[in-house]
């Protein structure tokens, strides 16, 4: 029997992978994908707990999160294209102009 614990464990693993990816990868698109993984792991948590508790609120939240993720993808990709036009690169280590 697959209990809510398994879902939560999977969600935690996915979240950690996402976080690790954000922290270690340099390619902006990969980082972006890692963020999506993190968001979806959270979505999974919402769904699992919603089912477990028997309350629809969590599912509603998931829709919001997905909407935000879609919007974020649109803005983020646009930013990256703009950046690539200037720097010929999407390595985040080249995104370092905002500093002392």
């Amino acid at each position, binding site marked *: 029997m697959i209990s809510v614990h398994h879902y939560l464990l999977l969600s935690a693993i996915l979240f950690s992978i996402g*976080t690790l990816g954000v*922290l270690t990868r340099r390619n902006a698109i990969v*980082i972006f994908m890692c963020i999506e993984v993190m968001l979806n792991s959270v979505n999974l948590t919402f769904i699992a707990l919603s089912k477990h508790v028997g309350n629809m609120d969590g599912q509603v939240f998931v829709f919001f999160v997905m909407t935000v993720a879609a919007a974020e993808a649109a803005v983020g990709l646009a930013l990256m294209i703009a950046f690539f036009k200037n720097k010929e690169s999407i390595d985040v*280590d080249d995104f*370092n102009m*905002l*500093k*002392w």
Partner: protein
Amino acid sequence: MYSNLWLIPFFPLVGSIINGLLGKKIKNEKVIGGLATLMMFCSFLVACQNFFRLMGDSVKTHQVVIGSWMSVGNLQIDWGFLLDPLSAVMIMIVTGVGTLIHLYSIGYMHGEVGFYRFFSYLNLFACAMLMLVLGNNALVMFIGWEGVGLCSYLLIGYYFEKKSAGDAAKKAFVVNRVGDFGFLCGLFTLFWALGSKGVWTVNFVEITENAHLLQTGGLLVTVVTLCFFLGACGKSAQIPLYTWLPDAMEGPTPVSALIHAATMVTAGVYMIGRMNILFAMAPTTMMTVAIVGAATAFFAATIGLAQNDIKRVLAYSTVSQLGYMFLAMGVGAFSAGIFHLMTHAFFKACLFLGSGSVIHGMHHAYHHAHLHDDPQDMRNMGGLRKKMPITFITFLVSTIAISGIPLFSGFFSKDEILWWSFGSNRGHWLLWIIGAVAAGMTAFYMFRLVFMTFFGEQKTDARAKDHIPESPLTITIPLMILGLLAVIGGYIGIPAILGGSNRFEHWLEPVFGEALEMHHIAAHGAHATEYALMGISVAIAIIGIFVAWTMYIKNPELPAKFTAKFAGAYRLIFNKWFIDELYDFLFVNPCKRIGTFLWRGFDVKVVDGVVNGVAWVTKGIGAGLRYTQSGYLHNYAVAMVVGVVVIVGYYVFG
């Protein structure tokens, strides 16, 4: 019945505001000057109406309140005006002489860049002066008192591009502040003293009514009156605060005539007159006033003997004549003091305006010849009587008046003062001697001025000497009117001994009578004594004139011989007894040193040090912390994750 009293200061205020705000746009000198003069004339008409109404009235003290100023507990202070014989005389002098001087200024100030500014200040001055004399309580009076001080400052500094004018203005203001400090101390002490007896008031009528609550000759009333006297010393240029007045001659000549001769400087005398009941209660103060007055009269006259600047002679003469007024106040001759105030306003205004007319002519001639000689130096004048006949005659008449020659106004008032200083029970024969000698010196230096300016050979530079014109009508008309007043002004106060009834004294009796009667102040003496004293003082004046004639007409080489023989004494009085230098040494320089110390030592090191130190520490912290802004995305991401982990960890495990 007297409800239009407020119009008297209101008219000049309107003129001042209009000229001050719009004068720059109006530009037309006739409109600006005409408006200012018209406003003064309107308030003169209202003053006349009230004056004559008061003459026919049996009640002599009227208060008109136009609004409440402040109300604190039992204390009620109004915007109130007081009309009694004393303030009636004062408003007549201020508005009358003021109108003439405004008219004169139109001609004298012609072509000046700040023409509108001048008339705006002059109107504002008239407003403040009228508030001063009409206020029914000490606070309204104080507004006027400060207002005239401000206008005096502005007008002395009228030629502000000249450093000497700016310095003179500052000096006048600062010295006046010392006096104002005394005035305020006196006012607060009086307020507290009467308040502790249950009467909280600053109203003059109530002060007069309740003065008996204080102990006659007591410490309190003496302190109060001495403080007020210090205030009067500042405003009326008495020893030790007289030094600003001669410097105030840096202002335009009409200003010297209006503010520094006829009106503002008499404010101190007026104030003592207003508080006569308190002064009468303090014999010590009265004695101080008399001694200071006599000393000033004498001392300023000695300086006047040796000055060569025509306006400076008149300035010292003003200080000296103010000394006479204080002498009068000090010996209880209140009405004689006010009488001399009035006659002095006539003849001294005329003298100043006459000197202005001379300077105007000299300036015109030098300008014509492109010379830069000093138009005020009498050594460049001489023989002007043929060039400026009207100026000469009015000047001569006023000089005779100030010298105390019988039948002219100055004789009646000065003689009254001298008689009281001898015969009054608050007087002393020494005071009389000082006064009489000063009168002789007055006659000498005034005739010296006339002889040097109008008689003898013309010493003006040859290129300029034929271009000195008589002044225009706007200048000569005020001269003629004031000259006439200088002759006949004294006839309203002919003393009883000369067959008159001294109507002036009777007129002021409702104000001064009570104090004189209550404290038994009167001048006693045989008629023979009075005649003798009168004869002696006239003789002294004539001797003064004769000496001046001998030295400056008959033997023009005599003055040089005298100055050579008494070189030390001459240098002493020529340099004004080095009083300015003494004050610089005693007060001005120490103050400057303290100021420099507070600037360099305290302000720069301590205050700036603290402020800069705080900024320096903040800057250091910022310089250290800015390295956290690396610009690398991963650093920020790590910081964020660590932060989240710590916070979540705190809530989960903490």
